[in-house]
Protein backbone atom coordinates (compact mmCIF):
# COMPACT_ATOMS: atom_id res chain seq x y z
CA UNK A 1 0.00 0.00 0.00
CA UNK A 2 2.72 2.46 0.90
CA UNK A 3 4.57 1.39 -2.23
CA UNK A 4 1.60 2.31 -4.37
CA UNK A 5 1.11 5.52 -2.41
CA UNK A 6 4.72 6.50 -2.99
CA UNK A 7 4.19 5.86 -6.68
CA UNK A 8 1.24 8.24 -7.07
CA UNK A 9 2.06 10.90 -4.49
CA UNK A 10 3.95 13.89 -5.80
CA UNK A 11 7.19 14.79 -4.07
CA UNK A 12 8.13 18.32 -3.17
CA UNK A 13 11.76 18.17 -4.26
CA UNK A 14 11.04 16.79 -7.70
CA UNK A 15 8.20 19.28 -8.15
CA UNK A 16 10.57 22.11 -7.29
CA UNK A 17 13.32 20.93 -9.60
CA UNK A 18 10.88 20.05 -12.38
CA UNK A 19 9.30 23.51 -12.34
CA UNK A 20 12.67 25.25 -12.19
CA UNK A 21 14.37 22.92 -14.66
CA UNK A 22 11.57 22.86 -17.19
CA UNK A 23 11.20 26.63 -17.01
CA UNK A 24 14.92 27.03 -17.67
CA UNK A 25 14.75 24.49 -20.48
CA UNK A 26 11.81 26.24 -22.14
CA UNK A 27 13.52 29.60 -21.69
CA UNK A 28 16.85 28.49 -23.17
CA UNK A 29 15.35 26.57 -26.06
CA UNK A 30 12.69 29.17 -26.83
CA UNK A 31 15.28 31.92 -26.80
CA UNK A 32 18.29 30.36 -28.46
CA UNK A 33 17.22 27.22 -30.28
CA UNK A 34 13.64 27.16 -31.57
CA UNK A 35 13.52 30.57 -33.28
CA UNK A 36 16.77 29.90 -35.12
CA UNK A 37 15.73 26.40 -36.11
CA UNK A 38 12.15 27.16 -37.14
CA UNK A 39 13.10 30.32 -39.00
CA UNK A 40 15.92 28.55 -40.82
CA UNK A 41 13.63 25.68 -41.75
CA UNK A 42 10.93 28.03 -42.96
CA UNK A 43 13.48 30.06 -44.88
CA UNK A 44 14.93 26.97 -46.48
CA UNK A 45 11.50 25.62 -47.30
CA UNK A 46 10.66 28.90 -48.96
CA UNK A 47 13.96 28.82 -50.79
CA UNK A 48 13.42 25.25 -51.93
CA UNK A 49 9.86 25.88 -53.07
CA UNK A 50 10.88 29.06 -54.87
CA UNK A 51 13.76 27.21 -56.48
CA UNK A 52 11.42 24.42 -57.50
CA UNK A 53 9.01 26.93 -59.00
CA UNK A 54 11.93 28.58 -60.74
CA UNK A 55 13.12 25.23 -62.04
CA UNK A 56 9.64 24.46 -63.27
CA UNK A 57 9.45 27.83 -64.96
CA UNK A 58 12.84 27.29 -66.57
CA UNK A 59 11.79 23.83 -67.67
CA UNK A 60 8.66 25.20 -69.19
CA UNK A 61 10.64 27.93 -70.90
CA UNK A 62 13.12 25.35 -72.08
CA UNK A 63 10.29 23.24 -73.48
CA UNK A 64 8.90 26.20 -75.40
CA UNK A 65 12.38 27.08 -76.56
CA UNK A 66 12.88 23.54 -77.67
CA UNK A 67 9.59 23.64 -79.48
CA UNK A 68 10.59 26.89 -81.11
CA UNK A 69 13.94 25.47 -81.98
CA UNK A 70 12.35 22.39 -83.48
CA UNK A 71 9.99 24.62 -85.41
CA UNK A 72 12.87 26.74 -86.60
CA UNK A 73 14.78 23.65 -87.54
CA UNK A 74 11.81 22.38 -89.45
CA UNK A 75 11.48 25.72 -91.16
CA UNK A 76 15.15 25.77 -91.97
CA UNK A 77 14.91 22.28 -93.37
CA UNK A 78 11.96 23.24 -95.48
CA UNK A 79 13.79 26.33 -96.58
CA UNK A 80 16.83 24.30 -97.44
CA UNK A 81 14.73 21.78 -99.35
CA UNK A 82 13.03 24.58 -101.18
CA UNK A 83 16.32 26.25 -102.00
CA UNK A 84 17.75 22.98 -103.12
CA UNK A 85 14.79 22.13 -105.27
CA UNK A 86 14.79 25.65 -106.68
CA UNK A 87 18.45 25.37 -107.43
CA UNK A 88 17.88 22.05 -109.00
CA UNK A 89 15.10 23.47 -111.10
CA UNK A 90 17.20 26.44 -112.08
CA UNK A 91 20.13 24.28 -112.92
CA UNK A 92 17.91 21.96 -114.89
CA UNK A 93 16.45 24.92 -116.74
CA UNK A 94 19.88 26.32 -117.32
CA UNK A 95 21.01 22.96 -118.59
CA UNK A 96 18.00 22.68 -120.84
CA UNK A 97 18.47 26.22 -122.03
CA UNK A 98 22.13 25.64 -122.63
CA UNK A 99 21.31 22.43 -124.42
CA UNK A 100 18.74 24.15 -126.58
CA UNK A 101 21.08 27.03 -127.24
CA UNK A 102 23.87 24.65 -128.08
CA UNK A 103 21.57 22.74 -130.37
CA UNK A 104 20.44 25.96 -132.03
CA UNK A 105 24.03 27.09 -132.32
CA UNK A 106 25.02 23.77 -133.79
CA UNK A 107 22.15 23.96 -136.21
CA UNK A 108 23.06 27.48 -137.13
CA UNK A 109 26.69 26.55 -137.51
CA UNK A 110 25.70 23.59 -139.66
CA UNK A 111 23.54 25.88 -141.69
CA UNK A 112 26.38 28.34 -142.05
CA UNK A 113 28.72 25.57 -142.96
CA UNK A 114 26.25 24.31 -145.50
CA UNK A 115 25.81 27.78 -146.86
CA UNK A 116 29.50 28.40 -147.08
CA UNK A 117 29.97 24.95 -148.59
CA UNK A 118 27.29 25.78 -151.16
CA UNK A 119 28.87 29.08 -151.78
CA UNK A 120 32.29 27.55 -152.12
CA UNK A 121 30.82 24.88 -154.26
CA UNK A 122 29.21 27.46 -156.51
CA UNK A 123 32.34 29.46 -156.53
CA UNK A 124 34.33 26.38 -157.40
CA UNK A 125 31.79 25.49 -160.02
CA UNK A 126 32.05 28.96 -161.48
CA UNK A 127 35.79 28.74 -161.39
CA UNK A 128 35.66 25.36 -162.99
CA UNK A 129 33.21 26.70 -165.56
CA UNK A 130 35.43 29.68 -166.29
CA UNK A 131 38.41 27.41 -166.51
CA UNK A 132 36.51 25.06 -168.74
CA UNK A 133 35.36 28.05 -170.79
CA UNK A 134 38.88 29.38 -171.03
CA UNK A 135 40.12 25.94 -171.89
CA UNK A 136 37.35 25.59 -174.42
CA UNK A 137 38.23 28.96 -175.85
CA UNK A 138 41.89 27.96 -175.99
CA UNK A 139 40.97 24.65 -177.53
CA UNK A 140 38.46 26.34 -179.75
CA UNK A 141 41.09 28.87 -180.79
CA UNK A 142 43.52 26.12 -181.47
CA UNK A 143 40.86 24.17 -183.39
CA UNK A 144 39.74 27.31 -185.16
CA UNK A 145 43.27 28.25 -185.90
CA UNK A 146 43.76 24.92 -187.47
CA UNK A 147 40.37 24.87 -189.14
CA UNK A 148 40.60 28.40 -190.45
CA UNK A 149 43.91 27.97 -192.15
CA UNK A 150 42.22 27.91 -195.48
CA UNK A 151 39.84 30.53 -196.84
CA UNK A 152 37.06 28.35 -197.79
CA UNK A 153 36.56 26.94 -194.52
CA UNK A 154 36.52 30.40 -192.87
CA UNK A 155 33.75 31.41 -195.09
CA UNK A 156 31.79 28.31 -194.42
CA UNK A 157 32.06 28.93 -190.72
CA UNK A 158 31.05 32.55 -190.89
CA UNK A 159 28.18 31.55 -192.92
CA UNK A 160 27.08 28.93 -190.42
CA UNK A 161 27.29 31.55 -187.61
CA UNK A 162 25.28 34.02 -189.57
CA UNK A 163 22.75 31.31 -190.18
CA UNK A 164 22.66 30.50 -186.71
CA UNK A 165 22.23 34.14 -185.76
CA UNK A 166 19.45 34.53 -188.24
CA UNK A 167 17.64 31.62 -186.93
CA UNK A 168 17.75 33.18 -183.54
Amino acid at each position, binding site marked *: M*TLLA*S*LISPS*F*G*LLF*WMVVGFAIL*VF*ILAKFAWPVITKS*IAKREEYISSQLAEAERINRELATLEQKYAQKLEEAKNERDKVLSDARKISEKMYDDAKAKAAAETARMLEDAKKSIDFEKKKAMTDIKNEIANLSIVIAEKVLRKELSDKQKQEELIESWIKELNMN
Partner: protein
Amino acid sequence: MTYGKIRQVATSLVLVIFFIFSPIFSQNAKAEEEEFVPGEYIMGHITDEYGWHITTINDHSISVPLPVILIDNGLTCFSSGKLHHGEKAYNGYALGFTEETSGSIVKLGGEYADYSGELEEGVVYPIDHVCKYDISITKNVCALLVSIILLCWIFLSVAKRYKDGPMKAPKGLQSLLEPLILFVRDDIAIPSIGEDKYQKFFPYLLTLFFFILVNNLMGLIPIFPGGANLTGNITVTAVLAIITFFITNISANKHYWKDIFNAPGVPWWLKIPIPLMPIVEFIGVFTKPFVLMIRLFANITAGHIIVLGFLGLIFIFGAMSPAIGYAVSPVSIFFYLFMGLLELLVAFIQAFVFTLLSAIYIGMAIEEPHHEEKNSEIVMQ
Protein backbone atom coordinates in the same frame (compact mmCIF):
# COMPACT_ATOMS: atom_id res chain seq x y z
CA MET B 1 34.83 -10.34 -41.60
CA THR B 2 31.38 -10.08 -43.01
CA TYR B 3 28.45 -8.62 -41.16
CA GLY B 4 26.93 -12.07 -40.66
CA LYS B 5 30.11 -13.38 -39.07
CA ILE B 6 30.36 -10.41 -36.72
CA ARG B 7 26.79 -10.94 -35.71
CA GLN B 8 27.41 -14.62 -35.07
CA VAL B 9 30.42 -13.89 -32.88
CA ALA B 10 28.56 -11.16 -31.01
CA THR B 11 25.60 -13.43 -30.39
CA SER B 12 27.72 -16.24 -29.04
CA LEU B 13 29.68 -13.78 -26.90
CA VAL B 14 26.50 -12.44 -25.39
CA LEU B 15 25.28 -15.97 -24.71
CA VAL B 16 28.57 -16.95 -23.09
CA ILE B 17 28.59 -13.88 -20.84
CA PHE B 18 24.98 -14.48 -20.04
CA PHE B 19 25.54 -18.10 -19.04
CA ILE B 20 28.63 -17.25 -17.02
CA PHE B 21 26.88 -14.58 -15.05
CA SER B 22 23.41 -16.00 -14.67
CA PRO B 23 24.39 -18.40 -11.82
CA ILE B 24 26.19 -15.56 -10.06
CA PHE B 25 23.07 -13.49 -10.16
CA SER B 26 20.97 -16.33 -8.88
CA GLN B 27 23.45 -17.24 -6.17
CA ASN B 28 23.83 -13.61 -5.27
CA ALA B 29 20.13 -13.31 -4.71
CA LYS B 30 20.34 -16.40 -2.54
CA ALA B 31 23.49 -15.35 -0.70
CA GLU B 32 21.82 -12.20 0.53
CA GLU B 33 19.66 -14.52 2.57
CA GLU B 34 16.97 -11.93 2.37
CA GLU B 35 14.17 -13.28 0.29
CA PHE B 36 13.84 -11.74 -3.15
CA VAL B 37 10.67 -9.66 -3.04
CA PRO B 38 9.58 -8.84 -6.61
CA GLY B 39 7.30 -6.00 -5.55
CA GLU B 40 10.02 -4.19 -3.65
CA TYR B 41 12.51 -4.88 -6.41
CA ILE B 42 10.24 -3.40 -9.06
CA MET B 43 9.13 -0.47 -6.94
CA GLY B 44 12.73 0.26 -6.01
CA HIS B 45 13.48 0.69 -9.68
CA ILE B 46 10.53 2.81 -10.68
CA THR B 47 10.33 5.11 -7.67
CA ASP B 48 12.71 7.85 -6.66
CA GLU B 49 15.74 7.31 -4.44
CA TYR B 50 18.56 9.20 -2.77
CA GLY B 51 21.74 8.30 -4.58
CA TRP B 52 21.69 6.37 -7.80
CA HIS B 53 21.90 2.68 -7.11
CA ILE B 54 23.65 0.83 -9.93
CA THR B 55 24.20 -2.71 -8.69
CA THR B 56 24.93 -4.81 -5.64
CA ILE B 57 27.90 -7.15 -5.77
CA ASN B 58 28.53 -9.47 -2.82
CA ASP B 59 26.38 -7.48 -0.46
CA HIS B 60 28.28 -4.33 -1.36
CA SER B 61 26.08 -1.88 -3.16
CA ILE B 62 27.56 0.31 -5.85
CA SER B 63 25.79 3.61 -6.32
CA VAL B 64 26.42 7.14 -7.46
CA PRO B 65 26.10 9.40 -4.42
CA LEU B 66 23.95 12.47 -4.97
CA PRO B 67 23.60 15.56 -2.80
CA VAL B 68 20.84 15.65 -0.22
CA ILE B 69 19.54 19.21 0.19
CA LEU B 70 17.11 19.89 3.01
CA ILE B 71 15.43 23.12 4.03
CA ASP B 72 15.04 22.28 7.69
CA ASN B 73 16.00 25.13 10.00
CA GLY B 74 18.24 26.51 7.31
CA LEU B 75 19.87 24.78 4.42
CA THR B 76 21.47 21.41 5.07
CA CYS B 77 23.52 19.65 2.42
CA PHE B 78 25.31 16.34 2.56
CA SER B 79 26.06 13.42 0.30
CA SER B 80 23.51 10.65 0.04
CA GLY B 81 26.42 8.22 0.58
CA LYS B 82 26.39 9.25 4.25
CA LEU B 83 22.98 7.66 4.70
CA HIS B 84 24.21 4.33 3.32
CA HIS B 85 20.79 3.29 1.97
CA GLY B 86 19.16 3.68 5.32
CA GLU B 87 21.81 1.84 7.29
CA LYS B 88 23.36 5.00 8.72
CA ALA B 89 22.25 8.31 10.07
CA TYR B 90 24.03 11.63 9.51
CA ASN B 91 23.62 14.56 11.91
CA GLY B 92 20.34 13.07 13.01
CA TYR B 93 19.05 12.67 9.46
CA ALA B 94 18.13 9.20 8.28
CA LEU B 95 16.01 7.57 5.63
CA GLY B 96 12.47 6.95 6.82
CA PHE B 97 12.22 3.46 8.28
CA THR B 98 8.56 3.27 9.23
CA GLU B 99 5.79 2.62 6.76
CA GLU B 100 4.56 6.22 6.76
CA THR B 101 7.98 7.78 6.38
CA SER B 102 9.55 5.41 3.87
CA GLY B 103 11.00 7.20 0.87
CA SER B 104 11.57 10.48 2.68
CA ILE B 105 14.22 11.77 5.06
CA VAL B 106 13.42 12.05 8.75
CA LYS B 107 15.06 13.99 11.57
CA LEU B 108 15.63 11.79 14.56
CA GLY B 109 14.51 13.11 17.89
CA GLY B 110 15.56 12.91 21.47
CA GLU B 111 19.09 11.74 22.18
CA TYR B 112 19.64 10.90 18.52
CA ALA B 113 18.99 14.48 17.28
CA ASP B 114 22.58 14.87 16.08
CA TYR B 115 23.45 11.21 15.80
CA SER B 116 25.83 10.10 13.06
CA GLY B 117 26.58 6.41 12.62
CA GLU B 118 25.12 2.99 12.17
CA LEU B 119 21.45 2.41 12.75
CA GLU B 120 21.16 -0.86 14.68
CA GLU B 121 18.38 -3.24 13.95
CA GLY B 122 15.96 -3.74 16.76
CA VAL B 123 16.58 -0.30 18.28
CA VAL B 124 13.55 1.98 18.14
CA TYR B 125 14.72 5.42 17.05
CA PRO B 126 12.41 8.30 17.90
CA ILE B 127 11.36 10.43 14.91
CA ASP B 128 11.20 14.16 15.51
CA HIS B 129 9.73 15.12 12.14
CA VAL B 130 9.74 14.30 8.46
CA CYS B 131 11.69 16.79 6.36
CA LYS B 132 8.97 18.36 4.22
CA TYR B 133 11.05 20.77 2.22
CA ASP B 134 13.42 18.32 0.68
CA ILE B 135 14.98 19.57 -2.56
CA SER B 136 17.61 16.85 -2.77
CA ILE B 137 19.13 15.93 -6.07
CA THR B 138 17.53 12.52 -6.10
CA LYS B 139 17.81 9.95 -8.87
CA ASN B 140 14.91 11.52 -10.77
CA VAL B 141 16.16 15.07 -10.28
CA CYS B 142 19.56 13.97 -11.48
CA ALA B 143 18.00 12.34 -14.54
CA LEU B 144 16.00 15.53 -15.07
CA LEU B 145 19.11 17.69 -14.96
CA VAL B 146 20.97 15.32 -17.25
CA SER B 147 18.11 15.39 -19.73
CA ILE B 148 17.91 19.19 -19.58
CA ILE B 149 21.63 19.49 -20.26
CA LEU B 150 21.35 16.90 -23.03
CA LEU B 151 18.42 18.72 -24.64
CA CYS B 152 20.16 22.09 -24.42
CA TRP B 153 23.34 20.64 -25.88
CA ILE B 154 21.49 18.87 -28.70
CA PHE B 155 19.34 21.78 -29.74
CA LEU B 156 21.88 24.55 -29.27
CA SER B 157 24.36 22.63 -31.43
CA VAL B 158 21.65 21.98 -34.00
CA ALA B 159 20.63 25.64 -33.90
CA LYS B 160 24.24 26.58 -34.53
CA ARG B 161 24.28 24.32 -37.55
CA TYR B 162 21.19 26.07 -38.86
CA LYS B 163 22.69 29.46 -38.19
CA ASP B 164 25.94 28.57 -39.96
CA GLY B 165 24.31 27.30 -43.11
CA PRO B 166 20.56 27.87 -43.31
CA MET B 167 20.42 26.87 -46.98
CA LYS B 168 22.56 23.77 -46.63
CA ALA B 169 21.11 20.27 -46.56
CA PRO B 170 20.76 18.98 -42.97
CA LYS B 171 23.60 16.84 -41.66
CA GLY B 172 24.12 14.43 -38.77
CA LEU B 173 22.06 15.18 -35.68
CA GLN B 174 20.31 17.94 -37.56
CA SER B 175 18.95 15.54 -40.17
CA LEU B 176 17.74 13.23 -37.39
CA LEU B 177 15.88 16.01 -35.62
CA GLU B 178 14.57 18.01 -38.54
CA PRO B 179 11.92 15.43 -39.52
CA LEU B 180 10.78 15.33 -35.89
CA ILE B 181 10.59 19.13 -35.71
CA LEU B 182 8.66 19.16 -38.98
CA PHE B 183 6.46 16.36 -37.64
CA VAL B 184 5.60 18.44 -34.56
CA ARG B 185 4.92 21.44 -36.77
CA ASP B 186 3.02 19.82 -39.66
CA ASP B 187 1.21 16.99 -37.89
CA ILE B 188 0.68 18.38 -34.40
CA ALA B 189 0.81 22.15 -34.18
CA ILE B 190 -0.66 23.31 -37.48
CA PRO B 191 -3.61 20.88 -37.75
CA SER B 192 -4.59 21.37 -34.10
CA ILE B 193 -4.04 25.09 -33.60
CA GLY B 194 -4.12 26.50 -37.10
CA GLU B 195 -1.54 27.92 -39.44
CA ASP B 196 -2.00 31.52 -38.34
CA LYS B 197 -1.81 31.04 -34.58
CA TYR B 198 0.43 28.06 -33.93
CA GLN B 199 3.66 30.03 -33.78
CA LYS B 200 3.00 31.43 -30.33
CA PHE B 201 2.71 27.93 -28.83
CA PHE B 202 5.19 26.16 -31.07
CA PRO B 203 8.26 26.59 -28.79
CA TYR B 204 6.36 25.09 -25.85
CA LEU B 205 5.07 22.18 -27.94
CA LEU B 206 8.52 21.45 -29.31
CA THR B 207 10.11 21.58 -25.87
CA LEU B 208 7.35 19.37 -24.48
CA PHE B 209 7.68 16.82 -27.25
CA PHE B 210 11.44 16.53 -27.06
CA PHE B 211 11.52 16.62 -23.26
CA ILE B 212 9.10 13.69 -23.04
CA LEU B 213 10.75 11.82 -25.91
CA VAL B 214 14.29 12.17 -24.57
CA ASN B 215 13.26 11.22 -21.04
CA ASN B 216 11.23 8.26 -22.27
CA LEU B 217 14.22 7.04 -24.24
CA MET B 218 16.65 7.68 -21.38
CA GLY B 219 14.36 5.66 -19.15
CA LEU B 220 14.89 2.68 -21.43
CA ILE B 221 18.68 2.76 -21.05
CA PRO B 222 19.32 0.37 -18.17
CA ILE B 223 22.50 1.97 -16.82
CA PHE B 224 23.40 5.35 -15.30
CA PRO B 225 22.53 8.07 -16.36
CA GLY B 226 19.56 6.34 -17.94
CA GLY B 227 17.02 4.08 -16.36
CA ALA B 228 15.33 6.61 -14.13
CA ASN B 229 11.57 6.50 -14.40
CA LEU B 230 11.24 10.25 -14.87
CA THR B 231 8.34 10.50 -17.33
CA GLY B 232 6.71 7.70 -15.35
CA ASN B 233 6.77 9.91 -12.28
CA ILE B 234 3.48 11.52 -11.35
CA THR B 235 5.16 14.76 -10.25
CA VAL B 236 6.82 15.27 -13.61
CA THR B 237 3.74 14.47 -15.65
CA ALA B 238 1.68 16.65 -13.31
CA VAL B 239 3.96 19.63 -13.89
CA LEU B 240 3.74 19.16 -17.65
CA ALA B 241 -0.04 18.76 -17.52
CA ILE B 242 -0.41 21.83 -15.29
CA ILE B 243 1.63 23.93 -17.71
CA THR B 244 -0.65 22.82 -20.53
CA PHE B 245 -3.65 23.59 -18.31
CA PHE B 246 -2.42 27.12 -17.62
CA ILE B 247 -1.52 27.83 -21.23
CA THR B 248 -4.90 26.53 -22.39
CA ASN B 249 -6.97 28.52 -19.93
CA ILE B 250 -4.96 31.72 -20.00
CA SER B 251 -5.01 31.94 -23.77
CA ALA B 252 -8.67 30.82 -24.00
CA ASN B 253 -11.02 33.28 -25.69
CA LYS B 254 -14.61 34.28 -24.90
CA HIS B 255 -16.03 31.75 -27.30
CA TYR B 256 -14.38 28.89 -25.42
CA TRP B 257 -15.85 29.89 -22.08
CA LYS B 258 -19.22 30.55 -23.66
CA ASP B 259 -19.20 27.02 -25.10
CA ILE B 260 -18.36 25.58 -21.69
CA PHE B 261 -21.14 27.31 -19.79
CA ASN B 262 -23.62 27.31 -22.64
CA ALA B 263 -22.75 24.42 -24.86
CA PRO B 264 -24.28 24.75 -28.33
CA GLY B 265 -26.37 21.95 -29.78
CA VAL B 266 -27.48 20.66 -26.36
CA PRO B 267 -31.20 20.48 -25.36
CA TRP B 268 -32.14 23.33 -23.00
CA TRP B 269 -33.33 20.99 -20.22
CA LEU B 270 -29.76 19.84 -19.73
CA LYS B 271 -28.85 23.42 -18.78
CA ILE B 272 -31.91 24.70 -16.91
CA PRO B 273 -32.89 24.26 -14.10
CA ILE B 274 -30.05 21.89 -13.25
CA PRO B 275 -26.91 23.02 -15.15
CA LEU B 276 -25.84 19.49 -15.93
CA MET B 277 -23.93 20.15 -19.12
CA PRO B 278 -22.11 23.26 -17.81
CA ILE B 279 -20.96 21.24 -14.81
CA VAL B 280 -19.78 18.38 -17.01
CA GLU B 281 -18.03 20.80 -19.34
CA PHE B 282 -16.43 22.66 -16.47
CA ILE B 283 -15.16 19.44 -14.93
CA GLY B 284 -13.82 18.65 -18.39
CA VAL B 285 -11.53 21.66 -18.14
CA PHE B 286 -9.74 19.88 -15.31
CA THR B 287 -10.06 16.31 -16.47
CA LYS B 288 -8.28 17.07 -19.72
CA PRO B 289 -4.90 17.87 -18.12
CA PHE B 290 -5.55 15.24 -15.44
CA VAL B 291 -5.89 12.60 -18.13
CA LEU B 292 -2.72 13.87 -19.77
CA MET B 293 -0.90 13.44 -16.47
CA ILE B 294 -2.26 9.94 -15.82
CA ARG B 295 -1.75 8.68 -19.37
CA LEU B 296 1.93 9.46 -19.59
CA PHE B 297 2.60 8.35 -16.01
CA ALA B 298 0.71 5.07 -16.39
CA ASN B 299 2.11 4.18 -19.80
CA ILE B 300 5.73 4.68 -18.90
CA THR B 301 5.46 3.19 -15.42
CA ALA B 302 3.59 0.18 -16.75
CA GLY B 303 6.26 -0.36 -19.37
CA HIS B 304 8.99 -0.24 -16.74
CA ILE B 305 7.05 -2.59 -14.46
CA ILE B 306 6.58 -5.17 -17.21
CA VAL B 307 10.24 -5.03 -18.21
CA LEU B 308 11.33 -5.36 -14.59
CA GLY B 309 8.80 -8.12 -14.08
CA PHE B 310 10.34 -10.19 -16.86
CA LEU B 311 13.81 -9.66 -15.43
CA GLY B 312 12.53 -10.38 -11.93
CA LEU B 313 11.34 -13.77 -13.13
CA ILE B 314 14.98 -14.79 -13.48
CA PHE B 315 15.65 -14.03 -9.81
CA ILE B 316 12.40 -15.55 -8.61
CA PHE B 317 13.13 -18.82 -10.38
CA GLY B 318 16.84 -18.57 -9.63
CA ALA B 319 16.00 -18.38 -5.94
CA MET B 320 14.12 -21.66 -6.25
CA SER B 321 16.94 -23.41 -8.04
CA PRO B 322 19.76 -22.16 -10.27
CA ALA B 323 18.77 -24.71 -12.94
CA ILE B 324 15.32 -23.21 -13.32
CA GLY B 325 16.95 -19.78 -13.33
CA TYR B 326 19.00 -20.93 -16.31
CA ALA B 327 15.97 -22.22 -18.11
CA VAL B 328 13.93 -19.09 -17.55
CA SER B 329 16.69 -16.60 -18.41
CA PRO B 330 16.56 -16.85 -22.23
CA VAL B 331 12.79 -16.60 -22.22
CA SER B 332 12.92 -13.61 -19.88
CA ILE B 333 15.59 -11.93 -21.96
CA PHE B 334 13.56 -12.55 -25.09
CA PHE B 335 10.49 -10.98 -23.55
CA TYR B 336 12.59 -8.18 -22.14
CA LEU B 337 13.89 -7.42 -25.63
CA PHE B 338 10.40 -7.60 -27.04
CA MET B 339 9.11 -5.22 -24.39
CA GLY B 340 12.11 -2.98 -24.88
CA LEU B 341 11.26 -2.60 -28.55
CA LEU B 342 7.64 -2.02 -27.70
CA GLU B 343 8.70 0.61 -25.17
CA LEU B 344 10.74 2.29 -27.86
CA LEU B 345 7.53 2.66 -29.82
CA VAL B 346 5.61 3.73 -26.73
CA ALA B 347 8.29 6.33 -25.93
CA PHE B 348 7.58 8.01 -29.24
CA ILE B 349 3.82 7.52 -29.18
CA GLN B 350 3.43 8.95 -25.70
CA ALA B 351 5.53 12.00 -26.52
CA PHE B 352 3.38 12.42 -29.62
CA VAL B 353 0.07 11.92 -27.82
CA PHE B 354 0.91 14.28 -24.95
CA THR B 355 2.02 16.98 -27.37
CA LEU B 356 -0.89 16.39 -29.75
CA LEU B 357 -3.50 16.57 -27.00
CA SER B 358 -1.87 19.66 -25.51
CA ALA B 359 -1.98 21.27 -28.95
CA ILE B 360 -5.61 20.23 -29.46
CA TYR B 361 -6.64 21.67 -26.09
CA ILE B 362 -4.86 24.90 -26.86
CA GLY B 363 -6.38 24.90 -30.33
CA MET B 364 -9.88 24.46 -28.92
CA ALA B 365 -9.35 27.26 -26.43
CA ILE B 366 -8.30 29.85 -28.98
CA GLU B 367 -10.56 28.80 -31.82
CA GLU B 368 -12.68 31.48 -33.44
CA PRO B 369 -16.45 30.89 -33.46
CA HIS B 370 -16.98 30.55 -37.19
CA HIS B 371 -15.72 27.01 -37.68
CA GLU B 372 -17.76 24.99 -35.25
CA GLU B 373 -17.92 21.80 -37.27
CA LYS B 374 -14.12 21.62 -37.18
CA ASN B 375 -14.25 21.84 -33.38
CA SER B 376 -16.44 18.75 -33.08
CA GLU B 377 -14.16 16.98 -35.54
CA ILE B 378 -11.15 17.50 -33.30
CA VAL B 379 -13.06 16.35 -30.22
CA MET B 380 -13.99 13.17 -32.06
CA GLN B 381 -10.35 12.38 -32.60
